[in-house]
């Protein structure tokens, strides 16, 4: 088996793949998958991808995988399956054509052509990347007006939200909701009246001006504890009790409007020095 190809291999890809930091990258010296490795090998032959020798390519591939395996015990299954496949394909190609009935794998020459096609396709995409990268890119090579002129705007709103945003919002919120629903601590809790009373007395000094009940009532934290409705209801009940005691005043401008609470001003006699 020829070893001469190896020193000329382009290992630049290794550095590139390492920076990806993607968990699922199958990293064998920087080749993401069997096709990428095959393409790199085929390129070193410096021939038209359509005229590559599958037999030679198979040998090189097998040698590479063999080497890589020695250094890295856990080699991705993809590489091994491809190796087995290439070995099989090579054997089929080397055997003289016989009147053997076609098996499920099909004519080896067809399969080899298919492989050559896929390599040519991947190679075309590689070249496309280089061509794209070589183009002047916005905000790196070419720049738009840095200071667009203020135009008197008669604005009509157009929403720029797209389907991805919509689906993302849905998935995020459902995922969150699923976590909440399945959390073992999640259970219905009420905000005890005692606690509401205690809390209201605590913040009484701050209630020197009218404050809305919806602001005073605590907000639920995370997915646990009483619901917002329970907070509001208990705070309202406690507040009404304290109105009766004469330490609070309540006020509502009209039916269904916000309810406001305020500490009843202290009698002048007590406030005087």
């Amino acid at each position, binding site marked *: 088996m020829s070893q001469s190809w190896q020193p000329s291999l382009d290992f630049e890809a290794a550095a590139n793949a390492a920076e990806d930091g993607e968990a699922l990258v199958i990293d064998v010296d920087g080749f993401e998958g069997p096709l990428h490795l095959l393409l790199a090998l085929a390129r070193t032959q410096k021939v038209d991808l359509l005229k590559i020798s599958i037999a030679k390519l198979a040998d090189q591939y097998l040698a590479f995988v063999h080497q890589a395996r020695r250094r890295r015990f856990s080699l991705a299954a993809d590489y091994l399956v491809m190796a087995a496949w290439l070995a099989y394909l090579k054997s089929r190609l080397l055997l003289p054509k016989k009147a053997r009935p076609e098996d499920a794998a099909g004519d080896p020459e067809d399969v080899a052509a298919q492989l050559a096609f896929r390599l040519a396709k991947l190679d075309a995409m590689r070249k496309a990347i280089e061509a794209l990268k070589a183009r002047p890119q916005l905000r790196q090579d070419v720049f738009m*007006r840095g*200071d667009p002129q203020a135009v008197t705007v*008669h604005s009509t709103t157009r929403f720029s939200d797209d389907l991805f945003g919509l*689906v993302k919002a849905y*998935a995020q*919120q*459902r995922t969150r*909701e699923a976590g909440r629903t399945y959390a073992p601590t999640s259970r219905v809790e009420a905000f005890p009246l005692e606690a509401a009373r205690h809390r209201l007395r605590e913040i009484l000094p701050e209630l020197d001006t009218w404050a809305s009940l919806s602001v005073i009532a605590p907000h639920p934290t995370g997915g646990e504890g009483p619901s917002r409705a329970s907070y509001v209801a208990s705070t309202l009940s406690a507040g009404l009790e304290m109105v009766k005691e004469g330490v609070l005043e309540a006020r509502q401008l009209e039916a269904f409007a916000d309810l406001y609470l305020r500490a009843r001003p202290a009698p002048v006699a007590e406030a005087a020095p």
Partner: protein
Amino acid sequence: MTEAMTEAMTEAGDADLAFEETGTYVPDVAGTERQIEALLFAAAEPLSAADLAARLPAGSDVGRALALLRQRYEGRGVELVCVADRWRFSTAADLAFLMTEEREESRRLSKAAMETLAIIAYHQPMTRAEIEQVRGVGLSKGTLDLLLEIGWVRMRGRRRSPGRPVTYGTTDAFLAHFGLGSLSDLPGVAEMRVAGLLDMNIPADFSVPDPSKVVGEEDPLGEDETDAPEFHQDFLE
């Protein structure tokens, strides 16, 4: 057109350095003019001659290039003006009438509104209480109003349940905006996973309803109900 300007234009694009008698390389003025043109165009604010000089190759004749550039743009739709010793391009004063045009302002929905819209889209018909139940937080009054106002959400009918709450659904305008042929084109669980939107640790029985199949019983809305948002629902539910 002045002599200098014509000359500058024929040399335009030629940013080579000219070799002067003194033996030092001096950037040619046409190249400098071009560079200043680009700098002033891309700058976020007006630049002084000193600002420009600091960003140009040493030895650039900023003053002369600015003069040429100003001449070049004279009478054009865009003019080079100097205000408080700083240079900038601005549109010609006589074209101001063009600049008072209407512009579409691109806006994005708030997170809450987007989530509400998504829930209505996937689960419709939904009552307000049901939306809150899925989101796990209360729905502020403005959120639904906004979606109704944009025209992406409509009142569909009334649920056959106590209180007969109003149900909400999406509109054709919603489909059109998001490029959907029909509600069945909304991506399902498989696509969400594929797009990386779902974690590995979501429950195994996680599913997304098929919004093209209406579940839950509802009655059509009454005649004059269609354009009155249900404010009292906010308090009843």
